C-alpha cells in the first residue's frame, strides 16, 4: 500500500473555495489539511463605515446563509446601541420567522443538492419503467448523454436499490421546488432573498399583518409536509444503506452552540435570554456546560496572518495579512474555545440541547435513536450530522407556526434609536451551519473594528498554535480509504459538515510532488 497523497481541489458541493490535502498510509488517513482558498477582507471593508451598514455588508459574506449574518449583525448592533432590551415582540418574532425559514430551506438544499449525489446514483434512472413525468424527464436527459452537472463523479460505492434511487432522484427535483418556496416565504418578511433587508437594529422592517402571517404559515405547512414525509424518511433510507458511516468521521467530539431564536422580550443579556435552542458546550461524555464567550480565541500560527495577531479574543481581533509565512496553509484562522477544538453546526445544537434537557429536542432525538436501536454516541459521525440536521429542520419548522401566531396585530415592529459615539457589541446566534458571532467596536459613530467568527472557521480551521488539527481535519484523520481514485469517504466526511468555502482534491503518487506550498513566484 505505502503512502499516497490525496488532494481534493476544488471540493465541490459546498459553498466557497476549499482544498483538502491528505496523506494516506496503508489505506488510512494519517494527516489532513483543510485550506480556505479565498480572501476578501470584508472586515477591512467594514472599517470606518456607519455601524448600521454592517447588516447590509456582512450578509455578503455568504449568499447561502446571509440571513444568519443579518441576525448576528443586528443582535450585535442592538447590544452596541444599548437597545437589546427594547426590541418589540413583533420585531423579535419576525426575526425568528426570517431566520427559521432560512434554516429549513437551507438544510433541504444541503441534504439533496449538496450531499445526496455522494449516496445516490442518478444514472439508475435510465432503467426507470414507471410513469412519473418528472423521473421520465430525467430519464430523457440521461438518454441524451450530456450529463453535466451530474457526471463525471466518483464511481463505485452507490448502494441504494434502483427503485429507491429513482424515487430519491424525484425528491431531488421536488426539493429544488421546496427550497425555492422556502426562500419565497422568507421574502414575505425579508423583502428579497438572498441578501434581504428585513431586519434592522431595534427589530424588523415588515409589519407582520395577518395576510402575510397566513401566507407564511401555509407555505410553511407545505415545507413541513415535505420534511416529515420525504426528507426525514430519505435520511433514514440513506442511513440504513450506509450504516458504516455511523462509525466514520467523528473528529474532535467537542460540541458548541451559541443558542438561537429568542423567546423572550426585554432581556438585554443574550446569554440569559430564553432561546428555543439554548447555549452551551458538550463532549463525548454528554455533560452540558454553560457557554462563556470570553473563552473564545483565534489562533493564526498556520494561517496567512501575522503571528502578532494570534490568540486574541474576537472582540480584539485583528486581520493583518502575511502570506509569506512558511508553515501557513489557509486563509482561515483557528478559533478555539478554552484552548480546545470545537465542532459547531446542527449536530452541536442538537447535542448541546439534548444534554441540557430541552424537552422537544430530547424526545425527538430519543425517538430516532430508538428507531436506529442505538445510543447517542452514533451521532458522533457523518450520518449523525445528517440526521441531526434533519431533526433540527423538523424542530424549527414545527415551532414556527406558534411563533407566527404570537404576533401582536397593530403593534410596532421596530423602535427608533440613536447611534452612540462609542460602544462595543456582541451578537451571538446559530447560523444554519453553526455558531456565529459578530463583534463591533464603535468610535465617533463609525465602525472602528468589526469582526465575525463564522461556523466554518471553527469547522474547517487549520491547526492551532499547539499544532492540534481543526474539526474537519480530525474527522478525516484515521479514516480508512477504500479506493484512492474515488475517495468517497473524504468528500462524505467534509460535506457532512456543510462547509461554507470551496476547495480541491487530487491524488499524486508518493514519488510525486510535495504538498503544494503557497508560493509567490
Amino acid at each position: 500500500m505505502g503512502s499516497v497523497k490525496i488532494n481534493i481541489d476544488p471540493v465541490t458541493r459546498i459553498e466557497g473555495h476549499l482544498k483538502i490535502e491528505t496523506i494516506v498510509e496503508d489505506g488510512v488517513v494519517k494527516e489532513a489539511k483543510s485550506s480556505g482558498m479565498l480572501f476578501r477582507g470584508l472586515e477591512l471593508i467594514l472599517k470606518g463605515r456607519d455601524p448600521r451598514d454592517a447588516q447590509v455588508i456582512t450578509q455578503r459574506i455568504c449568499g447561502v446563509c446571509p440571513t444568519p449574518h443579518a441576525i448576528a449583525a443586528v443582535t450585535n448592533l442592538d447590544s452596541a446601541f444599548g437597545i437589546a432590551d427594547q426590541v418589540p415582540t413583533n420585531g423579535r418574532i419576525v426575526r425568528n420567522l426570517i431566520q427559521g425559514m432560512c434554516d429549513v430551506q437551507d438544510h433541504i438544499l444541503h441534504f439533496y443538492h449538496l450531499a445526496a449525489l455522494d449516496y445516490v446514483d442518478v444514472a439508475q434512472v435510465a432503467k426507470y419503467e414507471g410513469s412519473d413525468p418528472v423521473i421520465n424527464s430525467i430519464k430523457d436527459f440521461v438518454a441524451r448523454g450530456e450529463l453535466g452537472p451530474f457526471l463525471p463523479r466518483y464511481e463505485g460505492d452507490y448502494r441504494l436499490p434502483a427503485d429507491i434511487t429513482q424515487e430519491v432522484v424525484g425528491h431531488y427535483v421536488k426539493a429544488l421546488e421546496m427550497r425555492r418556496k422556502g426562500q419565497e416565504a422568507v421574502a414575505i418578511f425579508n423583502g428579497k432573498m438572498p441578501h434581504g433587508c428585513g431586519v434592522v437594529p431595534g427589530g424588523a422592517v415588515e409589519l407582520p399583518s395577518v395576510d402575510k402571517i397566513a401566507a407564511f404559515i401555509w407555505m410553511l405547512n407545505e415545507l413541513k409536509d415535505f420534511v416529515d414525509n420525504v426528507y426525514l424518511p430519505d435520511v433514514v433510507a440513506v442511513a440504513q444503506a450506509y450504516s458504516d458511516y455511523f462509525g466514520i468521521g467523528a473528529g474532535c467530539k467537542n460540541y458548541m452552540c451559541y443558542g438561537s431564536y429568542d423567546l423572550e422580550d426585554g432581556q438585554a443579556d443574550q446569554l440569559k435570554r430564553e432561546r428555543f435552542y439554548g447555549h452551551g458546550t458538550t463532549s463525548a461524555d454528554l455533560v452540558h456546560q454553560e457557554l462563556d464567550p470570553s473563552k473564545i480565541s483565534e489562533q493564526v500560527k498556520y494561517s496567512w496572518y501575522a503571528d502578532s495577531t494570534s490568540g486574541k479574543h474576537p472582540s480584539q481581533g485583528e486581520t493583518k495579512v502575511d502570506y509569506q509565512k512558511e508553515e501557513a496553509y489557509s486563509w482561515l484562522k483557528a478559533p478555539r474555545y478554552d484552548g480546545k477544538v470545537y465542532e459547531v453546526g446542527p449536530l452541536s445544537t442538537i447535542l448541546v440541547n439534548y444534554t441540557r434537557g430541552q424537552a422537544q429536542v430530547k424526545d425527538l432525538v430519543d425517538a430516532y435513536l430508538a428507531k436506529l436501536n442505538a445510543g447517542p454516541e452514533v451521532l458522533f459521525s457523518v450520518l449523525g450530522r445528517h440526521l441531526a440536521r434533519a431533526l433540527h429542520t423538523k424542530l424549527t419548522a414545527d415551532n414556527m407556526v406558534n411563533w407566527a401566531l404570537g404576533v401582536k396585530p397593530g403593534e410596532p415592529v421596530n423602535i427608533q434609536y440613536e447611534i452612540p459615539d462609542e460602544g462595543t457589541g456582541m451578537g451571538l446566534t446559530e447560523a444554519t451551519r453553526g455558531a456565529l458571532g459578530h463583534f463591533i467596536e464603535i468610535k465617533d459613530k463609525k465602525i472602528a473594528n468589526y469582526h465575525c467568527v463564522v461556523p466554518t472557521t471553527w469547522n474547517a480551521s487549520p491547526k492551532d498554535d499547539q499544532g492540534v488539527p481543526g474539526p474537519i481535519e480530525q474527522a478525516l484523520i484515521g479514516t480508512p480509504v477504500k479506493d484512492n481514485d474515488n475517495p468517497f469517504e473524504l468528500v462524505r466526511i467534509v460535506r457532512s459538515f456543510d462547509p461554507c468555502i470551496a476547495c480541491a482534491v487530487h491524488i499524486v503518487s508518493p514519488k510525486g510532488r510535495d504538498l503544494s506550498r503557497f508560493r509567490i513566484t
Partner: protein
Amino acid sequence: MSKEVTEYPVIWLQAAACTGCSISLLNTASPTIKNILIDELIPGKHVSLRVHPNVMGGAGEQVIELLEKTVQEKGKYILVVEGAVPTAEDAVYGAVGEKDGKPVSMLERVKTLGENALAVLAVGTCAAFGGLPAGDPNPTGCKSVMDVFKQNGINTPVINIAGCPPHPDWFVGVVAQVVIYGIPGPEAFDDFGRPLLFFKDLIHENCPRRAYFDEGKFAKKQGDPECLYEIGCRGPIAYADCPTRMWNNGKNWCIGSGAPCSACTQPEFPDLGSPFFEKIKDDDLPNIGEE
C-alpha cells in the same frame, strides 16, 4: 428519442463570490431550475451546465479536467463568472485548483476560460463592476471581468447582469436571448453593459411610493409606508425593474418591505450607497421627472 438536440455547454466559475448569485438563480420560477438543468430550455436546445461548484457531481481533478477540456472547444461554450477577480499581489487572494503542484489563480482561470468562450455572462455586481469585495479600501485588488478583459486585450463579448444578487429572471432572460436569437448587438445594452430589457428605468421612475415623494411625504424610519428617500433610498440613482418585477416569484421587494433601495445594481455599489441609511446628496440626483 432520436431527435436532434443542440447542446449549449456552460462553465460556471466562482471567483471572489459569496454564492448568492447561484442561490438566486436556483429561485427561478418559470422556467424552474429543473427546467434549465434537465429539460430542453427551448425545443431542440439544451443548456448543459458542465461545471458548477455547488451542484456538480465531480470534485477535485475531475473539475479541472472538465475546465481544460472545455477550453479546447473554442467559441462553443458560455462562461459565467460569479464574483469579482482578485488581482492584487500577483493575484494570490483566490485560487481554483492547481497546475503542476501550484495553485492556479482566479485571475488566470478567468483569462484562459474567457478568451476562448463564445460569450461571458458576468453575473452579479461583483463580476460586473467589482462589487462588495472591491469596496473601499479594496484589500485584494478586486476587478470586474470587463476590466480584466480590457487590461489583457481579451475581446470576448461580456454581458453584465448586475445586482446583489441579480434577479433570476435577468439571468434566465439573457440565456434565453442567446439560445433563441444569439448574442445581441450593442443597442441592447446601456453604458455599463447591462441589458436594457431589465435595466432601462430608474427604480424611482416606477416606484409605487412615487406619489409620496411627489407630495413630499417621507418615512421617518424603516417600515413606515411613505417614501423612503429621506432615510437613504437609492431608488433615484439605481437602474433595475424591481418595482414592476418584484422578487422571489413576486412575493416582495426591498422597498415593498419598507427598506430603502441600496442601489445594488449600480457600478458604485457599495461605496456610493454607504452609509446606506443616510439621505443621498441632492446633487447626486438626475433630473427626476424631467424629459
